[in-house]
């Protein structure tokens, strides 16, 4: 009974947050002279085939990014640097795949490993700085984001292949391109096969965090570092490992897109996924399954909003207001739910104690 109510509350909170944020966005649109009815109509209309495919693809990228952030959050490490990590990884992976050192599928696997290693290494710098010099990972990862942009920019400009008036990495050989699944006619595009990486990562995330000793140690460290130390967790090692895992997952973020449609690192690179991931991780309370729903929601809103400008003359950016308010509202709602639960637990304990004492005293 109690459990059922808890679940109901946990589901109701995000739904209310979504409704609330759509209402606020509508208000903003009305104030700025647009039509809120158009906005709601477009957001809730059934997406075209092409958009459905895009939603599926974007969900996988956003999900990977959110997992990367969530691993850190679960042990109180604020890896704000997913953005820089997946950029470094995307470049390194594309460079490796483009060089075609290995044939066919091996090349894909090799490139994935290189990308994971590059993302992990970039995040590892922040982990190392924190453990050895006490530098806050928030600061170092933000700086590493900026450095990643300039380094990849420099490398592309210096060593990249010229294509038109921009530069890029070598195109991946056709034998190593990973075709997708075409649910509709050709023009609607393909769902990237490597999007399955997101599913694998999600299952692994859940399994490792909830079912293994390592995951228990990680969560314990996140909840109470002092208790973890007393229980024998080497928190320095844990910090480094968590940053490496977080960066490693970040390394996968752009891989479905690289092998599915982009085929090289250049103008095709999609920026901003790292920051979206942080918001989605918060929305999904850093848990594997809720994050998946949150990622789907963000991908849906992003893709649907593309039509706003053309069809209703509303700026696409309003959807960021919606997303921002959803996250804020949900964070507040979760905190309220958490407090409510603690209070009701305490009452149940007090109740149980009182029952016990009345039993002891003969009436």
């Amino acid at each position: 009974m109690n459990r059922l109510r808890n679940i109901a509350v946990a589901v109701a909170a995000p739904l209310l947050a979504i409704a609330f944020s759509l209402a606020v966005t509508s208000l903003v649109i009305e104030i700025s002279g647009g039509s809120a009815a158009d906005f709601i109509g477009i957001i809730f209309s059934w997406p075209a085939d092409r958009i459905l495919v895009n939603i599926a693809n974007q969900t996988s990228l956003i999900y990977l990014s959110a997992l990367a952030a969530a691993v850190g959050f679960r042990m109180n490490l604020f890896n704000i640097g997913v953005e820089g990590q997946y950029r470094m990884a995307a470049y390194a992976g594309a460079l490796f795949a483009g060089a075609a050192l290995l044939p066919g599928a091996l090349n894909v696997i090799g490139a994935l490993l290189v990308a994971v290693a590059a993302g992990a290494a970039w995040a590892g710098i922040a982990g190392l700085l924190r453990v050895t010099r006490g530098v806050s990972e928030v600061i170092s990862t933000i700086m590493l984001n900026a450095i990643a942009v300039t380094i990849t920019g420099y490398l592309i400009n210096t060593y990249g292949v010229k294509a038109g008036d921009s530069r890029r990495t070598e195109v991946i050989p056709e034998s190593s391109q990973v075709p997708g699944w075409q649910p509709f006619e050709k023009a609607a595009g393909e769902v990237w096969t490597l999007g399955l990486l997101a599913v694998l990562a999600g299952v692994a995330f859940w399994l490792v965090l909830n079912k293994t000793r390592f995951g228990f140690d990680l969560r314990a460290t996140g909840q109470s570092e002092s208790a973890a130390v007393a229980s024998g967790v080497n928190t320095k090692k844990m910090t480094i490992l968590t940053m490496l895992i977080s960066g490693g997952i970040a390394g996968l973020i752009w891989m479905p897109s690289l092998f599915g449609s982009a085929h090289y690192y250049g103008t095709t690179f999609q920026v901003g996924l790292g920051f979206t991931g942080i918001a989605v991780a918060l929305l999904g309370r850093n848990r594997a399954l809720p994050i998946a729903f949150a990622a789907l929601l963000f991908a849906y809103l992003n893709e649907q909003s593309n039509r706003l400008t053309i069809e209703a003359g509303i700026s696409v950016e309003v959807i960021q207001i919606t997303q921002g308010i959803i996250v804020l509202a949900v964070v507040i709602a979760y905190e309220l739910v958490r407090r409510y639960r603690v209070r009701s637990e305490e009452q149940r304990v007090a109740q149980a104690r009182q029952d016990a004492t009345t039993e002891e005293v003969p009436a």
Partner: protein
Amino acid sequence: MTTSAVELQGIEKRFPGVVANHDVNMRIAPSTVHAVIGENGAGKSTLMKILYGVQKPDAGTIQVDGEVVSFSSPSDAIAHGIGMVFQHFMLADNLTVLENVVLGAEKLHGTGAKARAEVRAISERFGFHLDPDVLVESLGVASRQRLEILKVLYRGAKIIILDEPTAVLVPQEVEALFANLEGLKAEGHTILFISHKLDEVLSIADAITVLRRGTTVGHPDPSSATKRQLAELMVGSELPSPATEESTVTETVQLSVEDLTMVDEFGRTVLEGINLQIHRGEVLGIAGVEGNGQNELVEGILAMRPATGRVRLGDEDMSRWGTRRRRAAGVGYIPEDRHRHGLLLDSPLWENRILGHTYEDVAVKGGWINRGGSRRDAERIVEQYDVRTPGIDTIARALSGGNQQKFIVGRELSGEPSLLIASHPTRGVDVGAQAAIWDQIKDARRAGLAVLLISADLDELIGLSDRIEVILRGRLVGTFDPRTVTPQDLGEAMTGGQEEE
């Protein structure tokens, strides 16, 4: 004495499913120190919150200076001259003493010269030694507490509620606080003093009210009552004492520490050349004024902080091992601060069964969490150690301190440890749980466990230990036999009285 400063009649407060207070009656005479004592969960906090306007009573009347009042917020209470100093200070470190005092009370004397003069005046009148322009972050605990009292006085309080004020103080500071309280009393203030420490209550209080299970059960006279009588009133039954039975000490050395030395991050030597041995079936008590290296000793033995020297458990040299390996070798650990070191407060009890025991098969098998095993074993602990909880899915935070502690004791005694490190095992625990924990430690000792017991409660140390070592400034300075030692002897050794001879 016609009117009381405060009079409570028939106060009742219910929370859904729980009666926190019922039929509470007390009269507090003006210009006195009135102590309110009771076990954890006896309803002291709720009562004080009602008096300070944080919560509204469901029934009963509150009279202040003979006038019936009804508070709906602390500001109402303050307007009637009631102020409260909480156990956890509410101060802004990066502001000065003056700024902290005027914060939220700007209307009284502004924030400038007039306020400063008022703060100085109060500080001087009561001997608080607080400079209005000093930053709070530079103040020690005792000064912070005086600042909290000053804040309350500045707002015009005549009746001051102090929630366990001595819990954070060392003995000398307690004396200074009591001197301040006498000063306040002499100036016509009334003090409501909530405490656990019965000897302190007897030395400072002019009147005592005992709460048990949410209601007032007695008003013993402090000039004639004994600690034992007070404790019995609190528990409502005969009080257990930690008397040792016959010795179970064996010849086998279980823990051997040689030349353990620890230097902290500021380069100070906090442990110096500690040598000690504990035999199987022996309880070694460590006595000392807090902050003389007790925590460091525990953390050194467990490798929670880097230290030099040798630590052997049975035949094994653990000196180079990390914390987990040492605990896995058979060391149970009841930490001093259970919230910081012993529990994951927001996790259910069964997950807390795993904490610190991930090497036991019952908790983790081959790297995978053994959910069934840890749930069953958590059930066993709840049953066997009488942990009052609706179930093992309850989060640790929801339990009372005594029940949290019983759970920890149960967990640390499972998995057949050969050494138990118990740091203040009954601190902040009510008398009922205290007796249970003492029994567990005695049983474990009888079963051949070696126990390192650190406690600030000298009665507990003398009652449980087979041998007592005194720690002072990071060194062991004397060995005593608990059968012959008196608290006075120990007290002298703990404060370095022996050194000067």
